[in-house]
């Protein structure tokens, strides 16, 4: 589903990614772990198409297509989703309105019929119930006045409703208490299916106790320097990132 080949990327002339190789197949869940500043978030932004990153070498193929040639909204409509580490507050725009527009924008792109208000509410109700999101949270402006946990839950709600093929979760566990962590993980696990893939980016093992990955990779100094099974996460938790150059920072 996703093939990253020898990806080099720079921000403001500084090379952050120095040859990342990663293949994610449908049905798989991968985790990328690594010390701070290793390029984890950069990778997630490049996959979702944020401006300001220059790809100097390499490519990203998504379902065989050159992902970098697509605009962020096109990537989203093609099934790529990024759960933000820091979800953005948008005052004056209701959460429901935002969600509905997001859903229908994707449907328009794919040539599907748009959902009307009633159909949309039906879909929404189902998901909010599962994720324990109150109606009141939907009636508020997007992420405005939300607690850290509410913001992350709102990200998972968006993911559940947009139903992506490839979900990238960027430090989704940061700022979550145990209960919220469970809700968020359950939301992610529900998405798991043979035709979907998940990429979890995290500093800590904590989230991976709930979302159990098939593969764990260590990203350090702009490269994937080690890959393994889920047991690698526990090893990292125990030994830290010192041997991966974190000490050099």
């Amino acid at each position, binding site marked *: 589903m996703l093939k990253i080949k020898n990806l080099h990327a720079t921000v403001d002339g500084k090379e952050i990614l120095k040859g990342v190789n990663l293949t994610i197949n449908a049905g798989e869940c991968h985790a990328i772990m690594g010390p701070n500043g290793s390029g984890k978030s950069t990778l997630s932004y490049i996959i979702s*198409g944020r401006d300001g990153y220059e790809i100097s070498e390499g490519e990203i193929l998504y379902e065989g297509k050159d992902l970098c040639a697509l605009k962020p*909204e096109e*990537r989203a409509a093609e099934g790529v989703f990024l759960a933000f580490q820091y979800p953005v507050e948008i*005052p*004056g725009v209701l959460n429901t309105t935002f969600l509905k*527009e*997001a859903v229908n924008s994707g449907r328009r792109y794919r040539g599907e019929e748009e959902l009307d208000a009633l159909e949309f509410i039906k879909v929404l109700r189902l998901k909010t119930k599962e994720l324990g999101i109150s109606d009141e949270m939907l009636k508020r402006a997007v992420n405005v006045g939300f607690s850290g946990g509410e913001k992350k839950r709102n990200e998972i709600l*968006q993911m559940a409703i*947009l139903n992506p093929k490839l979900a990238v979760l960027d430090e989704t566990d940061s700022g979550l208490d145990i209960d919220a962590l469970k809700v968020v993980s359950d939301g992610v696990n529900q998405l798991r299916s043979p035709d979907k893939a998940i990429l979890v980016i995290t500093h800590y093992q904590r989230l991976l106790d709930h979302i159990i990955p098939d593969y764990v990779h260590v990203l350090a100094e702009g490269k994937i320097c080690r890959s393994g099974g889920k047991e690698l996460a526990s090893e990292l938790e125990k030994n830290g990132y010192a041997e991966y150059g974190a000490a050099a920072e």
Partner: protein
Amino acid sequence: MDKITNLFTEKLAETRKFLPGSNLGWLNLSRDAGIQDFSRSGMPTQRWESWKYTRLPDISKDSFRCIEKQDGEKEVVSVPSLFKLADLEAKLVFVNGFLRSDLSKLEKLSDGVRIGTVVDMLQSDPSFVQKHLPKTSKEKVSPLVSLNAAFWETGIVLHVRPGLKLKKPIEIVHLSGMTNKPLMRHSRNIMIIESGSEATIIEHHGGLSAGKYLTNAVTDIELSNSATMRHYTIQAESRDSVHLATSNVNVGKDGKYHSFGLSMGAALSRCETNLRLIGQGAGCGVSGVYMMRGREHCDNTTVIEHIAANTTSREVFKGVLDDEARGVFQGRIIVHKNAQKTDGYQLSKALLISDGAEMNAKPELEIYADDVKCSHGATTGQLDQVALFYLRSRGIPEALARNLLIQSFLAEALDEVGDLEVRDAMLNHVIHWLPAHCYLADEWKDS
């Protein structure tokens, strides 16, 4: 005298006998005083501090003429309105300065309210007009007010007797244009809200067609003790027009004046509010939203004087500037020596959505009392790129995402509109102004 003052002096001599109240001695004297004041000052120029960022067009170049009776007889296809006729206390529709009874509603007024044209009032109760028309004083009057004093030919009078709280709003619609030569219309409005009474006014200014005209409106508002007035304005004049509006407001003890102006038209517009909180406990909210594109220029200038103690003022102005549009905000708050416990708040925020757009903001606080709370903020910025990416990463196309963020930006100012129905109507205008608004479904209106 320079060319322009000459031109107007001649024009007054020429048109004086056609102006309303030409048989009234006091009014002729008042017009004389107006033209004399104007001759002394001349047109404002950018050398004046209060006109630093706004340049008036050279009026002498265009052969503007005064309004004539037949200008009022143009066909009107639609009349802007926020409320059904049945939900209005009164509605006055002016076409090129002339009241169109066929489009207005002036019957069945509540007991104790007088509303009509200032021209009719000159017939029925000239002393009322004489009493409330401010005497021109030589130094402080703006040239536009002097010019208006000399030439005013239309306008409305509203008088709400003490203790009368009008439940329904009053709509005043001014439609202009479609004339053989461009018009220069001077309207003079007098609004007297007596003690303990309450009124809501909604003004619409629009063009009948594309084309030039100039409006120079002066509105004098007196709020007596404990009187309340909500004053909403939608300025959607034609793209080539010039819209100049000056409001002079006095607020008495415990009186409350709330205004909100939505500016979205005219090649050049300037709304100037001079407001005096003269009684203890008086308060005001003077806010607005402006949306400009092309080479449009919009100036919001406010001077708020806290004269008595325990007075409050609040200003929130937000604007969106596209293309090469220019915005100006000049907000002056003067706290007089005796105005202890003043609470003043002022915010100006502009969003530039094109590299060619420009904003000039000039907040000024002059504080002569020692126990006051006054804060102000002025920012000019661009669309938040992180927020834009956030929306796009959810599949929302860039154009629509930009619209959403603009709407989001303006929402804070729109919340200053107390009346929810009016707020929604204004939001609707905002949405329709947005580029490529066709993307937006109906439910945007709810947010």
